């Protein structure tokens, strides 16, 4: 159909196509289109919040935020695919070889960076105690007291912080998670 062809032509010149097959892109565009209630070719935060399973996810708002570039309220299909590309399993990297020298979006490092950015709201490349507390509060709701949550945050920072600045940098973050199977836990198995 006409709408699909135009987008595919534009998308085929972009790097994102390296992460998804033709049929997957078609399917993702159909999904994008069904979420886009305003039919203006871009998704707003409300469009995401209409998904019930996402609305009840404790980290729902942060995840939605990850789709929107700094200061913007709309994400187009390219941006949509770009964010989803982070969750491609790592072993499917034959397609992206030879495209450019930079690291693929779905590498272990980039997956960890995605998770890091869920914590680091102000993008200062450090997870402060406050930022950690915010995420903890989102995940536990009203079930844990401020004091208990505070001590959990303090202990976490103490264990991770190696340079004594009372916050967690990206390299410290990587070190803490070095034994975790990030590739599997932060991947979605796309069919076909």
């Amino acid at each position, binding site marked *: *159909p006409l709408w*699909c*062809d135009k987008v*595919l032509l534009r998308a085929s010149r972009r790097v994102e196509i390296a992460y998804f097959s*033709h*049929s*997957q892109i*078609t*399917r*993702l565009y*159909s*999904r994008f289109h*069904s979420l886009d209630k305003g039919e203006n070719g871009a998704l707003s935060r409300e469009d*995401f*919040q*209409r*998904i*019930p*399973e*996402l*609305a*009840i*996810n*404790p*980290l*729902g708002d942060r*995840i939605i935020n990850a789709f929107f570039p700094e200061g913007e309220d709309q994400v187009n299909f390219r941006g949509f695919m770009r964010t*989803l590309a982070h*969750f491609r399993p790592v072993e499917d990297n034959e397609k992206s070889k030879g495209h450019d020298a930079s690291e693929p979006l779905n590498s272990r490092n980039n997956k960890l960076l995605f*998770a890091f950015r*869920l*914590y680091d709201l102000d993008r200062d490349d450090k997870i402060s105690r406050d930022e950690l507390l915010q995420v*903890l509060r989102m*995940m*536990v*709701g*009203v*079930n*844990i007291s401020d004091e*208990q949550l505070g001590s*959990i945050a303090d*202990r*976490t920072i103490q264990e*991770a912080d190696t340079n004594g600045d009372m916050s*967690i940098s990206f390299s410290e*973050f990587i070190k*803490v*998670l070095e*034994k*975790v*199977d*990030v590739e599997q*836990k*932060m*991947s*979605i*198995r*796309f*069919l*076909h």
Partner: protein
Amino acid sequence: MKTLLKIFEWATLRIERGAKERNHPVYKPYTNGIIAKEPTSLVEEMTEIRRSGSNRDLDGAFEMSDIFYFCRRGLESIVDDEVTKRFSAEELESWNLLTRSNYNFQHISTRLTVLWGLGVFIRYGFLLPLRVTLAFTGVSCLVVLTTLVGYLPSGRVKNFLSETAHLMCYRICVRALTAIITYHHSENKPKNGGICVANHTSPIDVIILASDGCYAMVGQTHGGLMGFIQRAMVRACPHIWFERSEVKDRHLVAKRLSDHVQDKSKLPILIFPEGTCINNTSVMMFKKGSFEIGCTVYPVAIKYDPRFGEAFWNSSKYGMVNYLLRMMSSWAIVCSVWYLPPMSREEGEDAVQFANRVKAAIARQGGLVDMLWDGGLKRGKVKDTFKEEQQKLYSKILVGTQEDRSRS
């Protein structure tokens, strides 16, 4: 009908072949979904992540990797979620020569286009006018006959004539849609003093059920033509129409319903507990109101075959008139109706559990997915209680095990 099906299959294959020849991307509906989801729960996955990450077991401390679970679940639901797809028409595997159900419609071959053109001619030139005439006849007969019967004094004769009138008119309407219905297990048909519940796909459900048995309808009073029809119907036999203001008052609604079922001379009530139209691939949450009344429930499962015409009414996309026109210009409406054995509320079961039990039976019979989500999510927001449940579960993981240790 079988020849029609064969033609549909041939049409699909032809499209795919034509598309391959031109290297066009063919949009194929994936009935299996875009992604394969892991069915693990919150607890299972947290344990897995922690065990792989450190030597400690689930000892109640927070791990920075805990967000991975929520993150992945969130992304999965963005790509493919269970709920939003229930509010739009199901996708077909093979094309049925209606442009509305085909996403690949381009000129592929002359033969195909000719066949499609022939289909259009037959459907719009021949079937549609015939059906519209029948529909008018059916509705006017209903109004006229019920008004006439209404003048008779109450008694056995009146009831008999009223039932005959209703049945006849509904059967004309069924012909007007060319609905090919197969009824199963008619021995379980609803009897007086009970409630009939069914899954809801479109307003046509009412016509389909009412052409095989007599029911008391429940609904809001409308103005205009609908209101006129409602007033005529109620003269012949008691239906339950509510004013818009009365609908909010749950006690009033429950009282009128229970008064009706206690009177054994009155017909069984027909209710659709989902409250809204769902696309016939799943059954969504049943509202517990009808299950609190405490009488016998007769479940009915309705399953449409979408290959001949899509019966689902997407009320946010199409108005009623548009919908009826689409119905009448499809090939046919084919469906199966199963009358399930009657159920009653058991000891120690509350209304919600009873509703879920009935829902499961209907879903099982109709081959539909049984879902706990509320059909009201079509238009409304999801309740915060679900999020709070997840938060509670996670909090238990964080601090729960510490409590267990201090207790032992």
